[in-house]
């Protein structure tokens, strides 16, 4: 099966940041792979290592700068990546949930993904909505805040634990194809090896515009 992992560069602000009318001054901002996506990447790579996933593809929405972030996912074992951008998107500080869901859905359809893994939320904007909106857009099943995942590709289903409030877990069975939003602690994300970092340099990051994938923004 083919697994698509959504990854996002997430902004971290310095302790002594300053805010002006346009928001936070860029000099105080650093970008890194979103904490939750790191666990989603690890989930995907482990599915490949277990022989369940044939290919793990990363997808991000972001400017060229985001290549640096997606390379981190490639260095950890993601096979190749797609980056969607066009300057019209840059005008929007916060992309709305629906736009993100439509762009990611177009890529998922293009790739014919059987399973999409995303993070529960982005650590910067904490919206926590993209994965589930994406599932709805795709017509896939889903589960949010997944703390345990067991994929049975032959049966076309997955057994999933969702982490609820107060130390309670919900056990459920979900039909595939599906989107799962992955919670921290589900696994131990690996550090990229030197070899992985070297290999990532030659892995493909395909830049696409919304028009390329048939989305009007």
């Amino acid at each position: 099966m083919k697994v698509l992992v959504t990854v996002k560069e997430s902004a971290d602000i310095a302790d002594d940041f300053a805010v002006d009318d346009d928001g936070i001054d860029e000099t105080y901002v650093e970008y890194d792979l979103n904490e939750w996506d790191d666990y989603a990447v690890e989930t995907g790579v482990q599915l490949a290592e277990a022989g369940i996933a044939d290919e793990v593809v990363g997808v991000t929405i972001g400017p060229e700068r985001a290549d640096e972030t997606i390379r981190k996912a490639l260095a950890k074992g993601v096979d190749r990546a797609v980056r969607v951008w066009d300057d019209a998107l840059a005008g929007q500080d916060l992309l709305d949930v629906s736009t993100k869901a439509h762009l990611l859905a177009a890529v998922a359809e293009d790739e014919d993904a059987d399973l999409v893994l995303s993070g529960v939320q982005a650590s910067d904007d904490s919206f926590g909505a993209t994965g589930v909106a994406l599932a709805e857009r795709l017509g896939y099943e889903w589960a949010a805040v997944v703390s345990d995942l067991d994929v049975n590709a032959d049966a076309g289903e997955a057994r999933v634990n969702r982490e609820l409030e107060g130390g309670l877990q919900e056990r459920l069975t979900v039909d595939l194809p599906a989107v799962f939003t992955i919670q921290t602690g589900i696994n131990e994300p690996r550090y990229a090896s030197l070899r992985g970092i070297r290999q990532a340099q030659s892995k493909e990051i395909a830049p696409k515009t919304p028009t390329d994938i048939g989305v009007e923004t």
Partner: protein
Amino acid sequence: MSDGDVLAVTEHRQGELRDVSLELASAGRALADATGGDLHVAVVSGDVDAYADELSVDGVDAVHTVAAGDEFNHDVYVAAVEALVNDLAPTQLLLPNSVDGMDYAPAVAESLDRPVVTDAVEVDVTDDGLAVHREMYGSKVETVISIADGPFAVTVRPGEFEPASGTSDPEVVAHDLNLDLDALGSTVEGYEAVDTGDVDITEADFLISIGRGIEEEENLELIEDLADATGGTISASRPIVDNGWLEKGRQVGQSGKTVTPTVYLAIGISGAVQHVAGMKNADMIIAINTDPNAPIFDISDYGIVGDLFEVVPALTEQFD
């Protein structure tokens, strides 16, 4: 239905209405007042009639019940809320930003083609539409998102709005859902409690809580020394438990334990909302953090802006 109506969707689990439900009712009432509409409240699945009684509180104009299954299932909730919205055409749709809310609200908004803003801590009606206040960067920055007039969906943060109270006599309307419950794409099999080990941090008087600021597992020794010297009990924020450095039973917060010790000492913890949910009712909160803007200081009685690697050993020395 008139313009400006609000539909607030409540939630329950294992036979109990969850607190956020009455908070949604009060947030919904305030919005309906500001826009001159009615407040409709919905309850889906479970013993809906009993829940409808509990939801007959001040300010609720109508309670809509959808009996379908016992517990939360997102496929049922999506179908039920869609049907109710199509029926009632509320301008505003309010949903909880709980874990279950996160599992269906974005899908409902997408399928109804309504813009969604999540995790609101305040919602104001202005001349230009709606101003939704929410937090970013782990609660370091508050932003306001404006939604122009028109239908939308907002999810509200649990614990931020006063729960509605009192009693009222709303109209209760039962709705049938045209959905085959045996043919859903997801099936909830049951619940289990996470194994939390032997310690019970909820019984402790003095909690010494450690966060990601500790950097390395080896450095936990510093905290153990402080606990030995003071007789305090060690607890932690989530990343420490996710890393496997401490057992799950020591995690404070939304998905861990809720604690109310006499003193809660937060060391190298930023004060993200999911952490604060589990400790904000401690009698006294003291924080040690290098970042003067860390949100933990907003709820602390005493704060030390400083490096834990200096402050903690100095503190231990005082008690030795």
